[in-house]
């Protein structure tokens, strides 16, 4: 079986977790991803993984976001380094980056320059706030984008601080991957490359799709602008949270209350025929708060495990709020390769996030863990660009590559 993207060469010029993950997703499906790392390397990687590397523990972040990549260490600020980069661009299908435009232009990695070397190239960039508008060059910091999107002040309980989730950046990572492959599909039949942009702002906005669209259309509504107490949820049987006896939380998603009320009433010991709750309108409108309090009292009588067993037995859309230990040891996550176990050369058997997408004929692969800085310099310059080995040694001696 071959990789879906194994005829694609990607130049990975990224710093942030999310765009690096985008490049890894392309590598998972067979693309040859070459990570451009300035000599010295550390400044490009940043974050937790550097701390990990220093303290001698597993660099778990690098082995996720830089898996299936090659590393080229190059001083592109030198004349000869720039020439190497130009040769490399001529062989690349995609440049993937989150750098500010000025930095890209300084190295000849902007779209115009890349296009001059490779007319059908796809240059894809994760920006902070999009390619247009007065804030197009604000830094790509997800917290700033999340702050601007409108969800941070409404997801928590009333009176609590706003919440930053980080989900917007992960959304942007996949939007960017979709944009790249869509552009490659277009190139496949037209021969034409182009620029692709998505932003952390866009990622946060699409993560908030339904709330955002509701507010756009309705134009007002305290319940879209302020947090809603869990004891004031719109449907006591959907989107609701109740504490069980052992303190673990139970959540219900059964918007069709007519269908599920008899079952739920029975397992919680409520009277299905209670005239206060015997229609959807009474449950979700007229006597909504009373029903919430009835559930609140009922769920507090038993531990979470008790409720899970009853939900499962009746096929109800309801479950317990789990912590990360659940997916870490969940056989379903393992069976689908969402979480994988791998043999790390230094740290033995470790668990890692795996692959979110299943493909029957061209499955995601784990060909390699994160490369050391410069690990593939020879491979790229000789194997891909055809430089004679002597030239590569000479470039190394001058400090242009490592």
């Amino acid at each position, binding site marked *: 079986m071959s990789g879906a993207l194994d005829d694609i060469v990607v130049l990975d010029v990224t710093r942030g977790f999310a765009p690096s993950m985008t490049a890894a997703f392309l590598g998972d499906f067979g693309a040859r991803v070459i990570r451009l790392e300035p000599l010295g390397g550390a400044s490009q990687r940043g974050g937790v993984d550097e701390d990990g590397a220093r303290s001698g523990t*597993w660099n778990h972040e690098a082995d996720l976001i830089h898996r299936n990549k090659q590393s080229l260490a190059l001083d592109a600020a030198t004349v000869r380094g720039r020439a190497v980069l130009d040769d490399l661009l001529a062989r690349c299908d995609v440049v993937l980056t989150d750098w500010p435009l000025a930095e890209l232009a300084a190295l000849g990695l902007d779209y115009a320059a890349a296009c001059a070397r490779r007319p059908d190239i796809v240059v894809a960039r994760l920006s902070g706030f999009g390619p247009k508008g007065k804030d197009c060059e604000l830094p790509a910091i997800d917290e700033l984008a999340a702050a601007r999107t409108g969800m941070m002040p409404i997801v928590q309980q009333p009176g*609590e601080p706003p919440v930053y989730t980080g989900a917007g950046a992960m959304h942007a990572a996949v939007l960017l991957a979709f944009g790249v492959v869509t552009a490659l599909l277009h190139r496949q039949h037209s021969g034409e490359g182009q620029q692709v942009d998505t932003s952390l702002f866009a990622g946060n906005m699409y993560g908030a799709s339904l709330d955002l669209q509701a507010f756009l259309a309705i134009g007002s509504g305290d319940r879209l602008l302020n947090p809603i107490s869990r004891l004031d949820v719109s449907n006591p049987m959907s989107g609701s949270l109740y504490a069980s006896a052992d303190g673990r939380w139970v959540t219900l998603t059964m918007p069709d209350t007519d269908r599920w009320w008899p079952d739920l009433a029975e397992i919680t010991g409520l009277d299905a025929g209670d005239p206060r709750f015997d229609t959807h309108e009474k449950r979700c409108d007229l006597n909504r708060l009373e029903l919430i309090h009835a559930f609140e009292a009922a769920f507090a009588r038993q531990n979470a495990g008790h409720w899970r067993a009853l939900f499962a037995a009746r096929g109800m859309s309801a479950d317990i709020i789990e912590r990360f230990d659940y997916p870490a040891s969940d056989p379903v996550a393992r069976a689908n390769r969402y*979480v994988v176990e791998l043999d790390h050369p230094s740290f033995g058997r470790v668990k890692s996030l795996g692959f*979110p997408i299943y493909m029957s004929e061209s499955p995601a692969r784990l060909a390699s863990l994160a490369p050391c800085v410069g690990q593939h310099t020879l491979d790229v310059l000789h194997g891909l660009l055809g430089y004679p080995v002597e030239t590569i040694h000479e470039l190394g001696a001058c400090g242009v590559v490592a």
Partner: protein
Amino acid sequence: MARALEGIRVIDLTVWFQGPVSAQYLADFGAEVIKVERPQGGDQARGVRSIKSLEIGDWNQYFLVNNRNKKSLVIDLRKPEGQQIMYRLVEKADVFLSNLTPAMLDGWNLSWERLREINPRLVYATNTGYGRFGGASRPAFDMTVQALTGIMAQLGEPGQPPIYLGMGSGDAYGGIMSAFAIVTALYQRNRAGHGQCIDASLYGAQLFLAAPQLQSFLAGNSERALQHSRREAANPLWNLYPTRGKWVYVCEPNEDARFRLLCEALGDGALIEDPRFASAAGRAVNNVELIAEFDALAAALDHEALLARCAAHDIVAAPINTLADVVRDPQAWDNDYLLKTWCEEVQREVEVRGLPVTLSKTPGEVNTLGLQLGQDTELLMMDLLEYSWEEIEAFKAAGAIP
């Protein structure tokens, strides 16, 4: 202008949100998306009348926006004659997408094994709840799946209920993951000549919504599963602060020069001289004390004043905006993240969430909103599927189409 996915025909047998938004991405970039619905009311999302207890007004923005740029075909797939129509459609399609359960699809003779016999070039895509392996067949609504990933339990202040990321947050993410999977499989199909079976599940996608935190947990950092208070943020310079108005996000590295500037912005020179906070290490160790100091200073100001002072001192900061702010944000409109389009149902322009991915030469478009149930049935039966009028009458008589 050229469309990136021109010529790609997608059968969209989806309901609610994840599947429909996945196909929406393909339709936005020019694919011909044919939404197939049951005769009795179609996609259940057509019935949405309120969101968060707010009346949705005179147009159903939930359904109409998720299903924009699509055609509408009604078939009763429980009938063998309906399945015959579907098979003919499959012959002429590039992609089959469904977020119905595999068991339901099997029951209608629409399994991958069956459809690949009809069209070996077909990309067969499902959005299951928990993946195609491992035997989990529980109901899979957004929040019940999000509950299992662990992402909710690590958000919010300690002791507070877990945080749901927002209506449809996981569905939205599963939707873009699915769109990425589909274009990748199409790229591979165009090279290899045959399609494949792919799946982007709600669970698999959502495990990546908190990828940095979950990966850290898998590597042994067990405290990452727990809630962390903003009062104990490791870097007090990168934190949320309350003002008399909106909260403000300050995003600065823990460096001496940035600390001095922030203190000056907050108007407290004495803090700079405080020996507890004189170094990055000191600020990290005494983070709780420093955050309390910053809290008191910020709380004395309104957000406009604080942000003006931050701007004057070159401190990166943003207000925590609401949905009412983002719908007026020029940056969102300038990038087509929000746009206006004609709504047939109410005969006026309405505002919709737009195009989060910008392709410079083949941009997305929003041309129509979701159509009336079955609006294109007869036309598609005649023009695309080339049934004679007599055959169409026979299908109607059999109840396969309305």
